[in-house]
């Protein structure tokens, strides 16, 4: 789709709800995958119950829902490599980064070296990060 040529804005997608129970997490991911085609500067934030979206070994067999958690590990292929998880949200839920799936991307400027794309950031740092965005979409 044609947009104003050369315009690159900082888009931040806030994910604040649990992966199941409501559709927000799934439909947020659908937005992000489309957004990747627009060559904008994309950041993803997971905070509040949204941190559960990235937990590893999700098993939805018992609830009849599609397990879409594996899609997050494909984000690197979409050049989405700034994924922030709020430290306090993890701690408040008794989680650590070890409970989350590893998210990586291949750096085309560094001989396709595999690099980490998931960063745990504190609430104050996250505030500053959100403040510098042009567009914030909260799900």
């Amino acid at each position, binding site marked *: 789709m044609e947009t104003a040529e050369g*315009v690159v*804005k900082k888009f931040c997608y806030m994910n604040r709800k649990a992966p199941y129970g409501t*559709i927000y997490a799934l439909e947020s991911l659908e937005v992000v995958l489309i*957004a990747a085609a627009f060559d*904008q500067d994309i950041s993803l934030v997971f905070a509040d119950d949204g941190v559960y979206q990235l937990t590893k070994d999700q098993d939805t067999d018992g609830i009849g829902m599609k397990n879409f958690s594996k899609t997050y590990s494909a984000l690197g292929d979409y050049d989405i490599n700034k994924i922030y998880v709020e430290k306090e949200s993890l701690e408040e839920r008794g989680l650590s980064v070890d409970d989350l799936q590893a998210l990586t991307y291949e750096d085309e400027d560094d001989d396709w070296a595999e690099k980490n794309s998931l960063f745990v950031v504190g609430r104050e740092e996250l505030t500053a990060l959100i403040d510098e965005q042009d567009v914030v979409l909260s799900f």
Partner: protein
Amino acid sequence: MKFGIVINEGPYTHQSSDSALQFVKAALGKGHEIFRIFFYHDGVNNGTDLGVPPQDDRNLAKEWSELAEKHGLDLVVCIAAAQRRGMLDADEMKRHGKNASNLSKGFRISGLGQLIEAGIQADRLVTFGD
């Protein structure tokens, strides 16, 4: 200023559509431009033509249609969210072999790219949701 609007909740259960309607009216009244209004999640249900609210209550779908006609607003319902929830225009009805369509006048169905484009083109993207 040029605004983009996102509405993420359906009518009546949540107030987001009402608030967005008031915001859009106020913005237009102050001479601002509304680039696009994008309906996502249950917000797509704002586009149904089949709602019959009590006569002493507001009719949100009708108000959106009338406002769109008056000001040439671009009301876009997300196609993926709409298909899940049974919101179809005449073309989608035929494509999926359904026997009815229900999209109100003034709304159109299109893809999520329209939301991203609104974020790029508008000076401010304002979300109405929970």
